[in-house]
Each structure stands twice: as structure tokens, then as C-alpha cells.
């Protein structure tokens, strides 16, 4: 028995209670878009491109939020930089950058104050450490319900096929019916699911 044994909990972590981690790319997308919305974006474009022959995957998120000056855009990848006041670390972009680097890709941020921000994440598609795309449907539904006033464009290209969805068009078709009405959500869920399945999105 060593003196420090009492101070340390040697029990192995519970299998059912893993260390929290952003498991897949769809959660990273949700995270980054929440940044856009916190920056006052009214319109967000999410583009996913899976290019199997070139073995690349690109995720691009473009918003019309308040943007950042050059200094701030550079600092955005530093985990100890954040604009939040509730705590002193911000991990959204640094974690996505880590996910890119792990799979032979990179993260680029282009931002113009007053105009918006473009985040471009690239990955080697076949890389063993490339996180799976995950559940894009739930990410889109969450964004639409959480922020029905925001215009959201999703475009997913894979092997010459495209699935795209524009909430502006859907809102126009719905007229006075809100985007977050349960019946609308249910129809949208089916629509997105079948669209992504047709595409064979991974």
C-alpha cells in the first residue's frame, strides 16, 4: 500500500460512461453551426463533398454572421481562446481541427468582419482515423427546430449525385405553417433520410 493509494481512484472507468467526445462529423457540423448562429448568422450553408476517387472528403460551413478579424480568426484554433464569458476554453474549432489532422486533412478558416465566416474541413476519405459522418438527419432537424428563423442550405455531393435542401424553399411552400410544427418535422425527417439513403452517404 502506497501512501497515495487513498488519494487516487484506481477503478477503471465505467464502460457505460465513456469520456465525452465529439464522436462523428455530423456532431462537429452541429457544433460549428451553433458558433455561426451565436455570431448572429441569418443564413448558413453546409456543404459536404465525398470524392471517393480522389479519396477526399470536404465539409464547408459558410455563414453570414459577424465574422472575425484576422487576429481573432487565427486565435480561433487555440483552445484557450474563446469569446464566451462562462468559461475560459473553447473547443469547438480546435476539436474539428484535430479530427481533420488525424485523418490527413486540415482546417481552414476564412473570415471577414461584418460579412461572415467560411470554415473548410478536409479529410482523407478512406483514412482509418477519419470519423464517420454520423447522423446528418438529426443534425439538420436539430438546427431547423432550434433555430427556425435561420435559413439553412444543405448540399451533399457524392460520386456525381447530389442531395440538397433549402429551408427557404420549404418555408415558402409551407406558407404560414411553422417549420417546427410536429407534422412538418416528421415529413422533413423522412425527406432527409430518403435523400441521404439515395446518395449512399457515409
Amino acid at each position, binding site marked *: 500500500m502506497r501512501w497515495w493509494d487513498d488519494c487516487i481512484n484506481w477503478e477503471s472507468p465505467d464502460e457505460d460512461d465513456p469520456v*465525452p*467526445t*465529439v*464522436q462523428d462529423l455530423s*456532431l462537429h457540423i*452541429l*457544433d460549428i453551426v*451553433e458558433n455561426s448562429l*451565436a455570431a448572429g448568422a441569418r443564413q448558413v450553408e453546409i456543404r459536404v463533398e465525398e470524392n471517393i476517387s480522389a479519396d477526399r472528403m470536404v465539409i464547408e460551413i459558410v455563414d453570414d454572421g459577424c465574422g472575425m478579424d484576422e487576429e481573432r480568426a487565427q486565435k480561433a484554433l487555440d483552445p484557450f481562446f474563446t469569446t*464566451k*464569458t*462562462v*468559461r475560459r476554453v*473553447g*473547443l*469547438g474549432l480546435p*476539436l474539428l481541427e484535430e479530427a481533420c489532422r488525424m485523418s490527413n486533412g486540415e482546417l481552414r478558416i476564412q473570415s471577414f468582419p461584418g460579412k461572415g465566416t467560411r470554415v473548410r474541413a478536409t479529410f482523407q476519405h478512406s483514412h482509418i482515423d477519419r470519423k464517420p459522418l454520423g*447522423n446528418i438527419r*438529426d*443534425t439538420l*432537424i*436539430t438546427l431547423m*427546430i*432550434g*433555430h427556425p428563423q435561420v435559413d439553412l442550405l444543405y448540399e451533399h455531393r457524392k460520386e456525381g449525385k447530389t*442531395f*440538397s*435542401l*433549402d429551408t427557404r*424553399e*420549404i418555408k415558402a*411552400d*409551407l*406558407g*404560414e*405553417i*411553422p417549420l*417546427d*410544427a*410536429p*407534422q*412538418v*418535422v*416528421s*415529413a*422533413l425527417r423522412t*425527406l*432527409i433520410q430518403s*435523400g441521404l439513403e439515395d446518395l449512399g452517404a457515409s
Partner: protein
Amino acid sequence: MAKLSIEDLKKIKESVRAAVTLREGGYRARVNVHMGTCGLASGARAVMTAVLDEIQKKDIKDVVVVTSGCAGLCNREPMITVERMGEPPVKYIDLTPDKMREIFSDHVLGGKIVEKYALAIGSETTF
């Protein structure tokens, strides 16, 4: 561009018309799912999906779901704030989809605070 079919739209329009008038009379409750990086990493989206599923299954028309960022208590995520009309907001911590469903039926719909999952009652102050 993916679009809702005309048939879908017709169905939706018919069934929603009644609900819209109900909504104008105000919401029964608002569920705020905290979705910062910390929340997302610990399962906030699954909690969100669970609450949307309950709303749909029970055909609830007067509960709004919104999302927000990190509330500064990252180690207790996933976290939600439930606000029922005219009552103080309640924060729930360490959630799972199942706990979310329980809170939905007991508190959001039933008005009975689920104390075992609650962090605190009332609003946080901003400094």
C-alpha cells in the same frame, strides 16, 4: 433540391391549421437544450431527438424546443432548461434520452418537477 411533396403539404396544412390557433394563445412550456461543444460531446443531440420524438408521439402542439450554447457547467452535460408558462425555469443535468422522456411527461406536460435530475430552480444571474 429536396422538397416536400404536394401530398405531404396538403396533409400538413390540414392538420396544422387547428394547432396554429392554439399556439397563438401561448405555449405551455419551452424546453431549451444546451448544445455547446460540451453538450454535444456528451449526448445533447440524442436528448434533443428524444424530446422531438415525444412531441411527435404524443402529438403535442404547445411545447417549443429551442437550443442554446454552453451554460458553464460542462461536466454535468447534457443539460436542459424547462420553462413552463408563469413558473420559474428548472435546469436538469446529466441527462440521457430516457431521463429526458421522463422529464417530458412528468414536468413539461404534467407540471411536476423531477427533483432527482434537477440542478436548481430559477434563472442564473449574469455578472
